[in-house]
C-alpha cells in the first residue's frame, strides 16, 4: 500500500516532529510513504479569512504536488477538511475543478486512513489520554470514531473522555487573532476540561488546536501536556 | 372508523394532553353537561363564555352550568374588552370551545372561528374547557391541516392550541399562565 503524506505547514513551522511521527506511524503500519517535495500549504488560512484568490494560488500548488492516483494522508482534520470540502468550492469555476474533486475524493485524515484500511502502527504508548474533537474533523469530515478507534488499538493506553469534548476550543484560525479574548476564554475552558480528566496528556488530530490549548493553559497556569495523535501512534 | 380505533386515538390524545400539562377525559353525551359543571366548580369559575353552538345546547351544557350558579354568556357576549378579559373585578372566566378537530399525536386542539365561535374564546380567562367530538380526533397534524383546507378558504382564524398558556422567558423554565388559560380540560364526547 502506498500513500502521499501532507506534512502540513503548521507542523513545518511549529512542530516538524508531528510530520515525522505521521510518517513513522504509517511506515510501521506497512504503508509506503511518499512525501511530495514540492508541497507547501493547503491554503486554508487565506480561504477561511475570506481571501479565496490568494488561497487558490497556494492551493494550486498542493493540487499539483499531490497529483496522481495515490491516496493522500493528512495528519490534520482541518487541512483534510480543506482538501475534501473546501477545494471543490474553491476551484468550482476553475479549469482544475476536476482535479480538485479527484483530490478531495482520495484524501483522508491520518486516523481515518489507518482505521479504514485496518492498519495498526503497533504503538507502544502507555498511560491515560484525553481526546479533543477538533471541529473540522468532527463536523466537516464527520469523524468521531476513527481517532478513538486508533487510540483504542494502542494496548497500553486508556482514553478518558473530557466534558464538552465536542465544543470548539476557540482557535478558529484568524479568529484567534481577531477576537483573542473570546478565543482565549474558550481555550481556557477546554484546557480545564482536559486537565480535569486527570489524564497524562491531551491528544488531538489538529496541531492548531493543541498549540492554542496548551499555550492558553500555560498562560493561565493549568498544567497540561499535549501530543498530536500521530505522535501517540508512532510511539 | 371502527370504535376501537377511535378509542385508541382518544386514549392517545388524553396522554398527550397530560404531557402538555392539560387534562382530558372521555364522557358520554349524557354525562357531558354534568362533567362540564363539575369541572367549572372544581376551578371556581364564576363565568362561562360559551359558543353559540346547538350541539352544546343539545348536550345541555349551558343549562347545567347556569344551574350550578355559573353566569353563562353566549358568544358574542355584549361585554367590553376590559370585562371580557376579566379586568375590573370580573369573576374568573372559563372559555368554552368546541374544537373542529384534535391531533392525538401532539395533544393539539384545532379551533375554528365562526359565527358563534369567537377566536379568543379560550384565552379570555384563566380556564379553558373544550367539548370535543371523539369522531373529530385525528392522528397527526398533517391530517388535521391539509385535508381540511384543500380547495376551500379556511375560516378567518384557526387556532392550534396545545395545552395551557406558558412562557419560558424567565430563566428558560417553562411556567404556566402567561396570557392565555392557566388550565385546560378537554371533555371528549365518545358517542359523538
Amino acid at each position, binding site marked *: 500500500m502506498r500513500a502521499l503524506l501532507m506534512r502540513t505547514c503548521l507542523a513545518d513551522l511549529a512542530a516538524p516532529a508531528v510530520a515525522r511521527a505521521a510518517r513513522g506511524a504509517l511506515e510501521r503500519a506497512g504503508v509506503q510513504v511518499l512525501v511530495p517535495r514540492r508541497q507547501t500549504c493547503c491554503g486554508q488560512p487565506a480561504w477561511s479569512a475570506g481571501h479565496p484568490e490568494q488561497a487558490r494560488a497556494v492551493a494550486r500548488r498542493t493540487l499539483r504536488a499531490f497529483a496522481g492516483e495515490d491516496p493522500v494522508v493528512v495528519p490534520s482534520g482541518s487541512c483534510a477538511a480543506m482538501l475534501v470540502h473546501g477545494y471543490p468550492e474553491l476551484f468550482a469555476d476553475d479549469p482544475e475543478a476536476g482535479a480538485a474533486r479527484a483530490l478531495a475524493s482520495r484524501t483522508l485524515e491520518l486516523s481515518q486512513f489507518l482505521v479504514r484500511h485496518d492498519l495498526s502502527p503497533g504503538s507502544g504508548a502507555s498511560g491515560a489520554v484525553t481526546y479533543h474533537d477538533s471541529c473540522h474533523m468532527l463536523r466537516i469530515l464527520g469523524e468521531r470514531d476513527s481517532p478513538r478507534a486508533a487510540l483504542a488499538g494502542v494496548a497500553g493506553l486508556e482514553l478518558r473522555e473530557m466534558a464538552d469534548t465536542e465544543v470548539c476550543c476557540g482557535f478558529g484560525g484568524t479568529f484567534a487573532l481577531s477576537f483573542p479574548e473570546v478565543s482565549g476564554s474558550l481555550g481556557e475552558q477546554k484546557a480545564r476540561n482536559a486537565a480535569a480528566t486527570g489524564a497524562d496528556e491531551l491528544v488531538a488530530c489538529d496541531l492548531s488546536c493543541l498549540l492554542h490549548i496548551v499555550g492558553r493553559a500555560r498562560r493561565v497556569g493549568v498544567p497540561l501536556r499535549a501530543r498530536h495523535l500521530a505522535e501517540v501512534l508512532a510511539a | 372508523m371502527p370504535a376501537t380505533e377511535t378509542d385508541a386515538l382518544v386514549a392517545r390524545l388524553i396522554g398527550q394532553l397530560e404531557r402538555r400539562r392539560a387534562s382530558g377525559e372521555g364522557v358520554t353525551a349524557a354525562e357531558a353537561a354534568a362533567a362540564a359543571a363539575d369541572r367549572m366548580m372544581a376551578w371556581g369559575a364564576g363565568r362561562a363564555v360559551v359558543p353559540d353552538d346547538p350541539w352544546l345546547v343539545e348536550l345541555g351544557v349551558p343549562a347545567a352550568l347556569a344551574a350550578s350558579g355559573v353566569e353563562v354568556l353566549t358568544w358574542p357576549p355584549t361585554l367590553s374588552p376590559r370585562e371580557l*378579559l376579566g379586568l375590573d373585578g370580573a369573576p374568573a372566566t372559563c372559555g368554552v370551545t368546541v374544537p373542529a378537530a384534535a391531533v392525538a399525536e401532539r395533544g393539539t386542539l384545532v379551533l375554528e372561528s365562526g359565527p358563534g365561535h369567537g377566536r*379568543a374564546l379560550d*384565552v379570555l380567562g384563566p380556564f379553558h374547557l373544550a367539548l370535543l367530538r371523539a369522531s373529530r380526533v385525528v392522528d397527526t*397534524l398533517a391530517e388535521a391541516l391539509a385535508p381540511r383546507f384543500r380547495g376551500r378558504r379556511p375560516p378567518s382564524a384557526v387556532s392550534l392550541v396545545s395545552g395551557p398558556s406558558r412562557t419560558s422567558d424567565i430563566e428558560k423554565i417553562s411556567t404556566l399562565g402567561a396570557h392565555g388559560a392557566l388550565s385546560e380540560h378537554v371533555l371528549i364526547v365518545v358517542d359523538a
Partner: protein
Amino acid sequence: MRLRVRRTSGGTAPPPRVAYPETEALRERAREALQDDQLRGNLRAAAGSWAKGQAAVRERYPFAEMRAEARRIRTEDIRRLPELLDLLEERVRAAGGTVVRVADGEAACRYVVELARRRGARLLAKSKSMATEEIKLNEALEEAGLRVVETDLGEWILQLRGDHPSHIIAPAVHLNRDQIADLFRRHSGEEIPNDREALIAYARRRLREDFAAADIGVSGVNLAVAETGTLCVMENEGNVRLVTALPPVHVALLGMERVVADWEEAALFLELLPMAAINDDAATYVSLITGTRAPDEAGDGPTELHLVILDGGRSALRGTPFEEALHCIRCGACLYSCPMWRSVGGQAYGSPYSGPIGAVITPLLEGMRGERSSELPFFSSLCGACHQACPVGIPLHDLLVRARAAVDTPASRRARLAFRAWSILWRWPPTYRASVALARIGLAVMGRRGWVRRLPGPGAAWTDQRDLPSRWPPHP
C-alpha cells in the same frame, strides 16, 4: 435601500465588494460581555438547558429526515418565491386583507405610522417579531407620538429596561429572575416576590390593560401559506392570540422569504420550528389567520388586516452564493449552539439577529455596508456547530466564509495585502521553505526556554492570550 449584491443565474457568483469604515467595537463589546459573570452564568444555563432538550428531541423524532425534507422544501420555495408571493397576495386580498410590499424598513415603518394616523390610533399592542426589530418599528412609532407596547413577556421586560433582545426566540435570556423582579418592582412600585409565578401574574395583569385598550395589533409572521393566503404566527403565551383577535386592526409584518407553498409543507415547519427552538413538537398556540373577520362573525377578530411584505435586502440574495441564508426560519438553534454566542450573548453583536445567522444576514441585509457588517462575519471560529444545529441545514460556516470574502474594509484590505504577500511566498516551494526556515530560527531564538511569551508584529495578538511553545511536544 439598494443592495449591491450581484445577482447571477446561480452557482458560485463572484462575491460582492463594498467598503465601510474600520472599527474594533465588536471586539470591545465582546470583551465587556466576557467580564460580566452574571451574563455568562445566565447564558450558560440557557444554552445548557437547550442542548439537553435538543438531544432528547433528536432522539424522539425522525429529526434527520425532517431536516432533509425541510431543506428540500426551502430550496424549492425560495426558487419559486416570486410566484408564491403573487399567489399569497392574491389569496390574502380575496380574504379581505390589504397587502403592501415594501422595499425597505423605512417604507414599512412609514406605512404603519400612516395607517395608525389615519385610524386615529393611540396605542399599538405588539407581539414578538424579529422583523419589526430589524426595521426599528417601535422607534418609528414612538417618534410619531404613538404608544407601542410589547406583549411577549421577554420583549416587555426588555422594553421596560430600554434593552434589546439577545436571542431570536428568548429575547430576555440574558437576564435572571432577580434582575426581572427588581425591574418589575421599580416599574410598579409594588412589592413583588421574585418567584416566577408572581412575576408572570404581574405581567399578565398589566398587559391585559393594553390588550383591552389597543387600537391596532401588530404581529410578525412565522410562515405564510401561499395556497390559502394564511399567516401562521407561533407562540406559547397567548399574547399573539389576543393581539390578533381584539384590536379592530391587525398589521402583520412578513419577511418576504417566509413563505411555503401549501399546507403539507406548513405542517412540517409547524413541528420542526418548535422542535429546534423550544425542544417541543408544538408551540402552545399557533394562530392561522386568513384575511379579516368574516361578515357572519361577531364579537372579535379585526375588520382590517394589513399584510406588509418586507424585502429589506432579501430578494437581492436570490441567485447569489448567499441564497441559503433565505432558508432560515428564525428558530435560534444556531445561537444556542454557538460557542461565541454562548460566551458573549446576543447583544454584543449589535444587531437584532445575533449568533451565526445574525453574523451572516446582518451584513447581507445591510448590503454589506456599515460598521457591524465589517465585523460580524469574522466573529466565528467556523466550528460548524451552527450547521449541525440548523433544522433546515443551512451551511452557516460556508456562508460566513463567503461573507468574509465579500467584505472590503481598511482592515480587510490590509489583510488581503498581507495574504497576497503570503500567497506569493508560499506558492513556490523554495520561498516557502526559506520562510519556514526563517520562522523556525526566530522561534528558536525567542523561545530558548521552550516557550515564547511575547511575539512581535502580527503574532502579538497570539501571545496576547497564550504562550507559544518553541519545542514540540511542549513541556508545561
